[in-house]
């Protein structure tokens, strides 16, 4: 009992005591032989009635003064006072008692899920250890300026995003990503607030303010998710607005028209028994008229679903997106970063045997030519070269020209080196064989500086096509690894109702098709420019509408870095691997904190479960209420059944809603 009560606030404890006291009194009074003392009986029953219901009566009175007649308190007041007048004392007290039990239960359940979500989202750091003039001081993370040095000890939460300057450790990011494997960090690595330092002491230079840090952003996002209301939530609040008045007017009609019709049509004599029977029926109506069961269960389910999903590293930005996510039928995925790792690796180097150049030398030339480019392909070539322990001397490279969409031409030592795709080779007039390997192929050609000797200047743009002839050196094959869970995730998506899985990529067709075959994609569009992706998704949106109906939705999954326009036009934008990327968090509707494709399926399942619970609650509550209304009008249902229709339904709906929170094993 103490354990139960320590979680209650003062209001709840007070109500609990009143309910218990009234319940005991009610039982005692029910057993006492008071039949022969009507006045005493009435007065005695008033004690538990007022004990448990005085605040309801007061609120009802205030509501009338404020011209807000149709609220729950008014209905309860009328129903119970009516029952008392009809002499049904036990029922009058019981209705009030159960109504209050329902209120108490609702308030406890809501408080409990509020608390469990804040526990799940326990990523808010309380302090930061700021290092100033060699001394470490505990401060409010809000006060730490960008560029300060903070110290994070083992067991502490990372308060602010930053870069490790000293120390190495493993970080537990499970509260952010749901991923239990720790992440190792060393100096130079970025670390993200909300993760927990597990082993070593870290000195970190902050790169963001507290408010802009990942943990704050995520918390803000989850807290604000409830503001974008789902269609079912809007439906329920509209429903509640007409339901209560409609039931009240019906009750009034029942109380007046019932007896009148009985007298006129069925020739009943007008007596007190007839009138009181119909008034009793009308009062049962009022008990059923409270819409709270439905109204509370819907936001509670969404809140639970969104909170549970956040704990798994899936941020859903609003209840409305929960609905969209549950109805996804078409899924469009970007290749790089979504299905593949996006970590391009050199898988083969083929030199042209006619020229006396070996693999390593050609790779060196290509790496030098690409040394100033930030393109992932370029960095993979550099990585492959440096993997052998060699270091790249950028000083050997001059006059770099990027040829958009084709490649790069640069001067390395006394040689002009061109590295790029087939289009570049064609442009330079280099004869080469197209490689049949699957992957991105970088062709490498060179010509000696001597071909352009007149002015001694490095060859300028105009001289690219002029001058001596280019010699083909060979090519480098670069492929992107498919994520280990990708094929499995796509299979599971199809089991979960996805009609069509489409892959979009800027890559060459052969590569794209091979990836698609391997993971089970239905439709591939390759060699796309960013603007093509937008038009394609628009086309797919129209196709989906025709094929799968207006309720079906299309989700686009990308890494969120340069696909913001596509994320925006799709019914639902899902950004992957967004840990630390503000742009992705801004642009997407659903944010997956890590880049595991299985999370897409998990997000869909969580959404389905949540929507199923919402629908169960809506139809169960409305169904039971309408059934009881009809039975009440016919005189079959008594007030006890009405209490069940009101409080019982609410308790069941709330318990069902709480299920939405449990998503861990999905």
């Amino acid at each position, binding site marked *: 009992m103490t354990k139960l009560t320590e979680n209650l606030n003062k209001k709840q404890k007070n109500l609990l005591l009143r309910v218990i006291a009234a319940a005991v009194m009610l039982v005692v009074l029910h057993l006492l032989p008071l039949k022969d003392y009507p006045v005493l009986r009435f007065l005695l029953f008033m004690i538990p009635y007022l004990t448990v219901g005085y605040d309801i009566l007061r*609120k009802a009175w*205030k*509501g009338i003064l*404020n011209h*807000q007649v149709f*609220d*729950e308190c008014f209905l309860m007041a009328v129903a119970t006072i009516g029952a008392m007048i009809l002499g049904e004392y036990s029922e009058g007290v019981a209705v009030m008692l159960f109504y209050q039990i329902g*209120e108490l239960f*609702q*308030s406890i359940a*809501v408080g409990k*899920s*509020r608390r469990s979500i804040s526990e799940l989202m326990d990523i808010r750091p309380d302090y930061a250890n700021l290092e100033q003039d060699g001394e470490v001081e505990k401060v409010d993370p809000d006060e730490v300026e960008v560029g300060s040095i903070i110290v994070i000890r083992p067991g502490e939460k990372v308060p602010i995003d930053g870069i490790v300057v000293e120390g190495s450790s493993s970080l537990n990011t499970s509260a952010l990503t749901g991923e239990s494997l720790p992440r190792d960090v060393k100096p130079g690595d970025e670390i993200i607030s909300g993760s927990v330092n597990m082993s070593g002491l870290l000195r970190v230079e902050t790169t963001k303010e507290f408010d802009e840090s990942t943990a704050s952003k995520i918390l803000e996002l989850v*807290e*604000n998710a*409830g*503001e974008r*209301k789902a269609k079912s939530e809007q439906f329920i*609040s509209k429903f*509640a*607005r007409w339901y209560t008045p409609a039931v009240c007017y019906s009750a009034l009609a029942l109380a007046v028209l019932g007896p009148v019709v009985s007298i006129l049509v069925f020739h009943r004599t007008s007596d007190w028994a007839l009138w009181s029977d119909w008034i009793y029926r009308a009062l049962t109506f009022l008990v059923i008229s409270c*819409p*709270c069961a439905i*109204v*509370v269960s*819907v*936001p*509670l389910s*969404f*809140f639970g679903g969104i909170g549970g999903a956040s704990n798994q590293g899936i941020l859903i930005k609003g209840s409305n997106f929960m609905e969209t996510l549950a109805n996804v039928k078409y899924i469009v995925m970007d290749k790089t970063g979504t299905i593949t790792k996006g970590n391009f690796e050199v898988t083969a180097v083929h030199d042209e045997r006619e020229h006396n150049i070996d693999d390593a030398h050609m790779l060196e030339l290509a790496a030098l030519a690409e040394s100033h480019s930030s393109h992932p392909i370029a960095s993979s070539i550099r990585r492959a070269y440096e993997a052998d322990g060699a270091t790249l001397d950028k000083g050997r490279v001059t006059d770099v020209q990027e040829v958009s969409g084709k490649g790069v031409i640069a001067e390395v030592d006394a040689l002009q080196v061109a590295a790029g795709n087939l289009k570049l080779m064609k442009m330079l007039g280099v004869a080469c064989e197209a490689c049949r390997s699957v992957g991105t192929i970088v062709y490498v050609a060179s010509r000696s500086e001597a071909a352009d000797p007149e002015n001694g200047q490095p060859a300028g743009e105009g001289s690219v096509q002029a001058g001596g002839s280019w010699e083909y050196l060979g090519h480098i094959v670069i492929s992107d690894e498919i994520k280990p869970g990708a094929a499995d995730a796509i299979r599971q998506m199809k089991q979960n109702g996805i009609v069509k899985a489409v892959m979009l990529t800027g890559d060459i067709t052969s590569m794209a098709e091979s990836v698609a075959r391997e993971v089970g994609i239905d439709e591939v569009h390759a060699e796309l420019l960013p603007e093509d992706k937008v038009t394609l998704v628009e086309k797919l949106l129209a196709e989906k509408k025709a094929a799968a109906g207006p309720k079906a939705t299309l989700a686009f999954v990308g890494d969120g870095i340069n696909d913001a326009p596509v994320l925006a036009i799709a019914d639902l934008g899902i950004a992957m691997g967004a840990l630390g990327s503000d742009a992705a968090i801004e642009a997407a509707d659903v944010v997956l904190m890590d880049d595991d494709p299985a999370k897409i399926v998990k997000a869909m399942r969580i959404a389905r479960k949540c929507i199923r619970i919402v629908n169960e609650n809506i139809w169960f509550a409305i169904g039971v209420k309408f059934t009881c209304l009809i039975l009440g009008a016919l005189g079959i249902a008594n007030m006890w059944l009405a209490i069940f229709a009101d409080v019982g339904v609410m308790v069941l709906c709330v318990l069902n809603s709480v299920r939405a929170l449990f998503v861990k094993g999905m």
Partner: protein
Amino acid sequence: MKKTYKIDVDCANCANKMELAAKKTEGVKDATVNFMALKMKVEFEDGADPAAVMQNVRSNCKIVEDDCEIFL
């Protein structure tokens, strides 16, 4: 301009009523009440004085739901 206020209210339907009352208040462009987070987000009309408008929002909410509170 948008501002978020902490609120206190006991039942979900009461929260809906508060939302409706806030929306109808002069100077308020839009308002949403998040019952689970106990927060009210108010978007003000251009040129409206949030402090003054919120006083009205608060008293309008008190009319529809006597037992509510907005922490200004």
